[in-house]
């Protein structure tokens, strides 16, 4: 009887038993395999190649691509000579960088504010939340192009003295408001919509991180008689701050991805100015990394991002 009980608890040893820890590592490598293959073939190699291309002049000839080494020629061209129909790479790069740096704090504060609001309990919260993520879904370059009506249509309309018809302005003019007020309302709504379409994912991330703040902290604060204002500054914000870094990285990358700089690069790519577009892409990459490094230094010196609840 003693023997049978022992048999149940300790099964006979198999000959090739892999310890759990080892098998965890093996499975870890297997799970990462698709990503690692993708990283090497579709990321690291293309990245290296594009760095190389940026020093070459690439011209497509029948079935072949001829490469000619021109050193920093592409970079110099991008900065000094490149122009588009109404702007240039240099101007757009500076504009985008400045815009991103100004908009980033606004975006962060706005999305944190909205996230705190959406986290409160009120009637119809589910509906409001659902509506707030609609801009994320409808945010598409193709739709923007179509709503702008395309260049051809815009030119035609301008010829006839009509600028934008599918606009709030049109309706407001009909209601007989003063032009100044109309301009203000339209400008405000335009900007709010632009911010909202960028803010969708940040709101989502903030909302999720607020949800993960331990509930007992809020209860304790309530018992101590803290006001909503104090609760926000002393509990919500410190707990959310590690995720501010995540949201910042996301928002920054997103702003640049939808900027005119990225449109210029895609345009040059499609015009088969391959070397030039690679050089521009690298300028763009170094700008983003530069800003991120700057923000990292700032975050470190202001001690944002470290949290006493982590780990």
């Amino acid at each position: 009887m003693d023997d049978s009980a022992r048999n149940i608890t300790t099964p006979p040893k198999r000959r090739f038993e892999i310890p759990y820890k080892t098998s965890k590592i093996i499975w870890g490598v297997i799970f990462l395999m698709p990503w690692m293959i993708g990283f090497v073939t579709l990321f690291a190699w293309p990245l290296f190649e594009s760095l190389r291309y940026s020093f070459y002049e690439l011209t497509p000839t029948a079935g072949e691509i001829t490469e000619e080494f021109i050193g920093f020629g592409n970079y110099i061209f991008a900065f000094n000579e490149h122009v588009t129909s109404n702007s240039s790479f240099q101007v757009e790069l500076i504009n985008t960088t400045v815009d991103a740096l100004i908009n980033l704090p606004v975006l962060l504060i706005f999305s944190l504010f909205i996230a705190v609001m959406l986290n409160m309990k009120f009637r119809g919260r589910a509906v409001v939340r659902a509506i707030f993520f609609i801009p994320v879904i409808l945010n598409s370059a193709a739709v923007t192009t179509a709503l702008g009506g395309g260049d051809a249509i815009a030119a035609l309309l301008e010829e006839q003295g009509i600028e934008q018809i599918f606009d709030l302005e049109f309706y407001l003019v009909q209601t007989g408001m003063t032009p100044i007020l109309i301009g203000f309302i339209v400008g405000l709504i335009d900007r709010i919509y632009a911010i909202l379409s960028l803010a969708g994912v940040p709101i989502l991330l903030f909302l999720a991180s607020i949800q993960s703040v331990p509930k007992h902290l809020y209860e304790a604060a309530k018992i101590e008689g803290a006001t909503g204002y104090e609760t926000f500054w002393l509990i919500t914000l410190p707990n959310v701050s590690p995720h501010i870094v995540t949201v910042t990285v996301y928002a920054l990358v997103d702003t640049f991805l939808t900027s005119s700089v990225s449109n210029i690069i895609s345009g040059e790519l499609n015009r088969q100015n391959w070397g030039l577009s690679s050089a521009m892409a690298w300028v763009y990459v170094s700008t983003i990394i530069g800003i991120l490094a700057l923000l990292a230094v700032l975050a470190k010196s202001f001690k944002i991002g470290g949290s006493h609840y982590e780990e």
Partner: protein
Amino acid sequence: MKSNDLMQKWNGYVEQAKENWNDPRNMLVRKKKFQTVAMTILRTVLLFGLCFVILFPTIQQLSMALRAPEDVNNPAVIWIPENWSLMNLRIAAVVLDYGKAAVNTFRLSAISMLLQLASTALAGYAFSRLKFKGSNILFLLVILTIVIPPQALSLAQYFYFRNLDLLGNEASIYLMSGLGMGIRSGIFIYIFRQFFRGLPKELEESAIIDGAGVFRTFWSVMLPNARGALVTVGLFAFVWQWNDAYYVKIFEVSTVEFPLLTMRLINAAEGMYQALFYTGGLDLIGQDVWENPLFLALISNVAALLMMLPLLIMYLFVQKQFVESIERTGIVG
């Protein structure tokens, strides 16, 4: 005498009411109540206003779409169409090659979503639970894939797929998604990693005690618990693939035989008249209408609406789960 008595009684009440009013506890309660009411009003106004801003363009487009083509610049029609008509929708559908393009886009988005889910969930799980030496360094590389814009990569990828003879083939998109390098895969890996990290250790331990291997633990214990992350990532992967015009253009996926909504829409918007001419949309309406540039702009708007409509309908169904998934677990561990 009697009135004096009443007076006294009345004064007593007033005194008591005053005392009640000035009682610090009541004052606090009053202050709190006032704050709550003010907060509610502020919140309602703000959220309602923002919801209006979000919904306004879509509602407007719907109202535009449902009026008769002749009424494009009829100043009498503002919100409710005077003559209801589906003609605009029909013309836009013809321009977009809607039936075929919608099915193709759906197929591309659905398959790419599944592949993205598979590759990023596996990677995210490995980064959070199956750590080995150097996996943290590998995770830094994931962050790098988020930061580097696709423009820096697509040229080499283009040559790559050209050598593999995958240009003009949807397989190129699938390959990207399946290998975890699709549209913003890095963020999905990040979300999954945070999510799996937040799941309690006891789940894993009890699975081990019950004799489950590593894969079994992942598949039957962890993954069902990760429904929130799966819904979120799935929704984003689907939507971003649906809206994508960049990769689809670079890899020339959209062709005459395999039209995709985004490319059809962009092409149509850039040359609406030609698009109407070649697809036969002009035959559906009279010359006096199609000579009006406003009409061309209107069709371009309606086409955009048609492209977004399936997403909106889908979102109506998924929305509850999506919002709940944030509520219940929190993506950020």
